[in-house]
Structures are given as C-alpha cells and as structure tokens.
C-alpha cells in the first residue's frame, strides 16, 4: 500500500508525539477485545496506554521500552496495525463459533469423563437418616 493511500485511511490515524505513537481507532471497525489483544502482544517491547471513548474513538499510546527513532516508530506502528487485523479476525472467529464450540466441547467433556452417578445399591448404603430402613426393622413388628 502506498503512503498516500495509507494516509487516506480514516479508521486509523497515526501520530508521533515526543517519541511515542498515538494510534486513533474507530471502535466500530476495531472491537475493544481486538485492541486489547493486539496491545498485549507488544508488552515485551513497549509501554502501552489506552484512552478515548469506546463508542467514538479509542486512542492507543505506544512508547518503546528502548528509545525508538522515527523509522523504528513507523515500523512499530505497521506491526501494530497488522497485529490488530489478526486480532479482529480472531475475535470474529471466536464470536461466530462460540455457541457451537461450547456445545461441541461440552459434549466431548461430558462423554470423556467417567460418570459420577452412583448405583442404587450405593445410595442405600449411604443412607444416613435411615430412610430406606423398613418400619418393622426400625421399630419392630406391629402388634
């Protein structure tokens, strides 16, 4: 993509301020979960801070743990945008497959685990209140 086209993208705005990046995102295009996910990937290399309004605009402030020159900052911005795209897809896959995935996993786990139900005999053996003991045994024959 040419730098001219890049500048025309309105859903992402990138600024460089005092050695840090400020990336402004449209939350209708980039869900908050995807932004969190992408930010997390960079915690080994950068300090990140989020601000803005989740309904209007999210601002991501990124500062390198080591001082980054202008070129390195630009590279970091590019990497962040790619990671963000990956996270948008991950979020979409998770959302669209959530229900059926839960059903499949639940069914698999239910079938895989040994049943915890006990036999009728075991229930009678653990009869602490003596409910299963016949009247005659408890109180003797009726006269």
């Amino acid at each position: 993509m040419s730098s001219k086209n890049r500048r025309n993208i309105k859903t992402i705005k990138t600024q460089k301020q005092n050695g840090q990046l400020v990336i402004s995102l449209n939350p209708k295009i980039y869900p908050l979960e995807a932004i969190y996910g992408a930010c997390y990937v960079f915690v080994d290399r950068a300090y990140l801070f989020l601000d803005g309004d989740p309904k209007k605009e999210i601002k991501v402030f990124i500062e390198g743990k080591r001082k980054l020159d202008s070129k390195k900052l630009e590279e970091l911005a590019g990497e962040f945008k790619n990671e963000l795209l990956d996270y948008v897809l991950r979020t979409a896959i998770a959302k669209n497959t959530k229900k059926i995935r839960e059903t499949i996993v639940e069914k698999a786990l239910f079938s895989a685990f040994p049943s915890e139900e006990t036999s009728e005999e075991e229930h009678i053996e653990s009869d602490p209140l003596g409910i299963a003991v016949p009247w005659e045994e408890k109180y003797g024959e009726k006269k």
Partner: protein
Amino acid sequence: MIKTGFFRFKKLGQKYLLTNDLGDFIFLQKKDFKNFKEGKLKEEASVYKELDKKHFTSKSWRCENCQARLTNRYASYRGKYLSQGPGLHIIVVTLRCDHACRYCHASSKNMTRTDLDMQEPTAKKVVDMIFETTSPFINVEFQGGEPLANFGIVKFIVNRVLEKNKKAKKELRFSLVSTLSLLDDKKLNWLHGKKISICSSLDGPEKLHNKNRPKLDGKSSYRATCQGIKKTKKKYKDLHYQVNALITTTGDSLPLWKEIVDEYVKLGLRDIHLRPLNPFGMAKGLQKLLGYSAQDFVTFYKKALDYIIELNLRGIDIRERIAKMIAQKAFTDNDPNFLDLRSPCGAGIGQLAYHYNGDVYTCDEGRMLGQMGDGTFKLGNVHKNTYKEIISSEVTKSLCLASTLEGLTGCSDCVYLPYCGVCPVFNYSEEGNIFAQAPNNFRCQVNKSILDYLFRKFETPEALKIFKKWLSK
C-alpha cells in the same frame, strides 16, 4: 461473516499456521488463507479438501467424526487426569547428597546431616496418604538429595506400598532419580528385583558434567554416573524399562550442543531431554552466573535438534523428548500427559510432593521453593492434615486456575495452545505472580520459539519421517 470452524492462527514465515482444538494443524499460503477466511475457497480445491479432512471447515468441524475425536482426545488426556486425582507421588527421602551441583534444584545438604533423612513414622504416613488417592494409577518417584543415601527408607516405602496394594490393587510404578554414585551391586540387585525404573542426570562430556555437578569428595562425578548408567543398563536388559538421564543446561552447555548429544549416543541412551535451567534451588541466586536468555537457549536447542535429526538420518537411534512429545500431540490424539506441557498443569491434581519431614507440596517445583523458605505451595503435613484437607486446598485450586490455558491472556488465542502448558510456580518464582505476562515470560518465549521451529520442521519431509518414526516406537 466467517464461514469456518473454530481455529487459532499465526503467520509463520511466508505462510499461515492454523491449529484447532483437536491438535490438527495446517500451513496455508497467504492467498489460500485469505480465501478461506472469506469463505471463497472452492470445495474442489485440494487445499479445501485438506482443511475439510482436518476439521477446519465449518462443515467438517461440526461433523460426528470431529466430535468423536475431540471426545477421545479429552478422554485420553483431560478425562483421565482431571477426574482421577494425583497419580504421581514424589518422595524426597533425604536432603543429603554427595554432590554439590552448581544449580541444585533440591537445595541439597551434605552427607553428615542425617537429621535431614525421612524417618519411618513419616514414611508410613506418606504411604498411607498416597493410598488415599482416587487415582487407579500410582507412580512413586524417589528423589533427594540423593535417595540412595537413605536407601533403607526407599526399601521400607516400596515394601509398604506393595503390601498395601495387595488390597488396593492399583496400577503401580516406581522410579528413582539418582546420580547413581552410591549405587552398589546389592542396591542394584534389589532395585532390579522390584522393577524400579531409574533416571539419572548427565549434563554432557566429562569436563562440563564435573564442573556443573562436582562431587564432595573431589572425585569425578561424570565417571561415577557413567559407570552407574552402564551397570544399570546391563542389569536391566531383561526388563522393558529404559535407563534415562536428564540434562540440565547451563551457560557452559550452550556451545557444547554436539558434544552433549554425542555423550548420550556414546552411552547408548535413546532419549535426550533438552530442557532449560529452572529458577529453583540454588540456581535462582546463581542465575546471572549460570543462566542465559531465552534466545540463547533456543539457538542451542535448534543446533542440537538438527544434529539429532542428522544422526537419525545416518541410522543412529536417539530421540529428543520435547520434539517427540509435540509430535505426539500434533499427529495423534493420544496425549503424552507430560506435566509441564499440559493444561491444567499437574500441581496438586496430578501430583503431590512429600518432603523428608512430611510436608506436602503441590509439586516438586513448589517443594523446591519451600526448601528455599517460601511455603506458598505447601498444602500441609502428613502428620497434621488429612488427605481431604490436602487435596481440597485453595492453593491447588488457584494453580489449576492459573494453568488452564483457555482462561489465560496470551494463551487462549495462541496458535500453540493445543500443545503447550504453563507452570504457575515458575511464574511465581520469576515474576512474583502465578499468572504470567506471556510476552515477557522466559518459558513462553522458549516454548513459542521451539514450537515455531518444530512446526517448520514438520513441513520438511526428511525430518517429519524421523519424528513419525519416534512415535511408532
């Protein structure tokens, strides 16, 4: 709208790697990945058929076969260890040792300290507690210090376990982790007679091994261990057990990747486990001296693994354990149940560690921290607590929660989730928190890089053939 089954992915080189909950994986070219996620792949295309066969497409992901495989995977993997209770019981019978290893994980003490031996009343209580486990399978592992230094208690425990098992009828296994320097014929005959498997420690060639693991009497620890391995191999020939050895990698080991592998081949050991140094025991204080970065270790691992594959191609039979386990997870539905690479980890629910004084810990790593004066992972003591109190501890529950990958930031969406595992005790020791910050975590960095490398190797027909051969044996 996404028209696929559930999958995780990452870009690896020029391709995209996709994995699913079954542990199946596929590499896609950029163009195919784009078409697949947009639902534009044609059903007649070979790549679609491959995706369909491996349950990545929406249709095959919902099919009965996929459901059956997932059930089977959970049954052989999570079903077993989550519902059965602790099967691995590690007993530290003494803290005494005739070695003074630079990185000693067990924080061992010298041979005169007999007050650090487990005594019979404690051993009796330990065995009683082991038999309260709900697991139908029991593996008693003797560790130290040097367990052969308190051999009387090893014999006492084995005999008592065998006696109790006449009634309990559990599936039993014994193993002993030893330097083998105190192994004489009498002990070896007894261990062989009871079919106790033996695992030793061998760091590599003589100079490196002796530097890492000096003996207190100044003699060569390398010679003592090699002699022990040879004797045991000879004696155990009639049993199906293999004598194993573990390597502990220090900074000095890194340039010696070839010599280390050669040493294992020379001794006829079939497996080598290339694992990084743990931050426990003395190693934590000496990390700067002995340690290295994640990248340094990964470079060492890659060189050694390439060499191992080369040796295999030349007909020399030696396997690397991490690669073998990952291959088993990626190509079969039968999980190796290795406690470091499973979710949740084994702490408290798969294993318990008993200290010489009867203290019970979630795992051996937790016990090592306990020995260093941090009792965070202590669950109780066999003299004071019941099995129920030990097993229902909040500590066990916390570790279970902190090692279930699906609930962890950085893990839940990682492409390698089906093959990986975390160690909350490691995280606690390194970061002061049982929940790790994945991108900054040493283990995560090592695991991710090794997995990147292995999955690339799976794409190489020659290497793949070797990995599959390892699985068939």
